[in-house]
């Protein structure tokens, strides 16, 4: 085909292609722009969390009182330690990742294998930790009562310690009766949400025990939840109380505002999804390193690219950690 232009006459000139004005390869640069767009996504999620929090700024749960558990330390109040542990796991797996990238630059296959392996293990430990954290959060801890207005009120004794619903709710009368077909009207069904005690039991137990007080989700100027006097507590529970809430799901949340649980599931879930994808990509590159793909290719840039993604996941966690657990 004589009409086909084979040469453009620009080879070796500025517009001939193959230039790298930013001194980065195509793949690396695209990974950077993917990271920019993904960071905007996360920024959108976190700022919508911020908006909901600013809407209910004086009734937002205090993270220190929500995440107080540590595996194998049952009943020990350990605020923050578990998330701090998760943060260190992720930072450390970032360190091993960057060491793998460094070893890749030096073409040290054995070292790349070793550090990639540690990175994958770190990622798996993080995912396991997150599963445990979700499980603890969903299961709940002391239980609470939701009012007609959707407020969450929690129970304390006179010393200011939290009291679990099961410890004071009367068990003999007013228990929850299962809804069956022959009782009630055809469209009535068994409730989806089944707490272990009924609201009536909680109310009776609360009235019988003079030692108990109600704590509101609203906070004073020191950032602590407001505790009502005994009389106010009784009035609040009897007049406004509506249902028992145990644990957290997308509709009810015993720790405070339901939006807190919604955003917790959504944002940490989306981050956890990124971590899982990161572990998957790391595994693919790990096996490619073992079978020597990058030795034959002559460079380990793939390790670098997947490393960029992995560091980004760490970067996002730094922000999630701050805005969910610290601020």
């Amino acid at each position, binding site marked *: 085909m004589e009409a086909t232009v084979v040469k453009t006459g620009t080879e070796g000139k500025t517009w001939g292609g193959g230039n790298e*004005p*930013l*001194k*980065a*390869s195509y793949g690396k*640069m695209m990974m*950077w*722009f993917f*990271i*920019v767009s993904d*960071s905007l996504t996360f*920024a*959108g999620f976190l*700022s*919508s969390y*911020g*908006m*909901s929090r*600013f*809407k209910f*700024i004086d009734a937002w749960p205090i993270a*220190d009182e929500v995440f107080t558990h540590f595996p194998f330390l049952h009943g020990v109040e350990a*605020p*923050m330690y578990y998330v*701090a542990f998760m*943060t*260190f796991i992720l*930072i*450390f797996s*970032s*360190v091993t990742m*960057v*060491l793998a990238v*460094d070893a890749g*630059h*030096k073409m040290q296959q054995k070292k790349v294998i070793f550090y990639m392996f540690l990175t994958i293990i770190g990622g798996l430990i993080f995912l396991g930790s997150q599963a445990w954290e979700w499980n603890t959060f969903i299961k709940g801890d002391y239980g609470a009562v939701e*009012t*007609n*207005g*959707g*407020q969450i009120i929690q129970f304390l004794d006179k010393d200011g310690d939290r009291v679990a619903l099961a410890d004071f709710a009367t068990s003999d009368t007013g228990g929850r009766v299962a809804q069956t077909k022959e009782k009630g009207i055809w469209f009535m069904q068994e409730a989806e949400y089944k707490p272990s005690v009924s609201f009536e039991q909680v109310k009776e137990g609360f009235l019988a025990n003079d030692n108990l007080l109600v704590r509101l989700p*609203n906070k004073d*100027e*020191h*950032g602590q939840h407001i505790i009502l006097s005994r009389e106010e507590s009784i009035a609040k529970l009897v007049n*406004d109380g509506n249902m028992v809430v145990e644990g957290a799901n997308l509709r009810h949340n015993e720790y405070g505002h339901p939006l807190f649980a919604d955003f917790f599931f959504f944002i940490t879930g989306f981050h956890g999804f990124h971590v899982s994808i990161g572990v998957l990509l790391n595994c693919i590159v790990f096996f490619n390193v073992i079978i020597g793909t990058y030795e034959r290719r002559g*460079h380990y840039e793939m390790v*670098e690219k997947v490393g*960029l993604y992995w*560091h*980004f996941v*760490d*970067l996002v966690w*730094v*922000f999630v*950690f*701050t805005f969910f*657990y*610290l*601020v």
Partner: protein
Amino acid sequence: MAHEQAHKLAIFRGNLKFKSNVSKIWGVFVVLSIITIIEVALGILRPDFLVTHKFLSLNLLNWIFILLTICKAYYITWDFMHMRDETVGLRRAAVWTGVFLIAYMVLLILIEGDYIYEVYKHGFIKFDF
């Protein structure tokens, strides 16, 4: 390509120099760990002074947390993601785009959230029952 690259081995505006890239990585890890430990300690203690005093309607403790977070983000991006070694053009294309867009969005959205809070508080809607 991609053999021994030239890394910039100094952090803290050139005040702390490392002999090799590997020792720089461990140095940055130490910096990140120290920042995280400070954050966690402040998060557990919550000194009353920092909680009750405010600057631009955000208490000082939260300002400290946010600034320390940005510090951490800087070291992760600059040293772990090798932004320090990239060309100025790539660095600005990635960082400035994100920083300006996010700052603008956060500002608008938080102002809007605070406005709704005021409406709930002083408006005629009663939701506190």
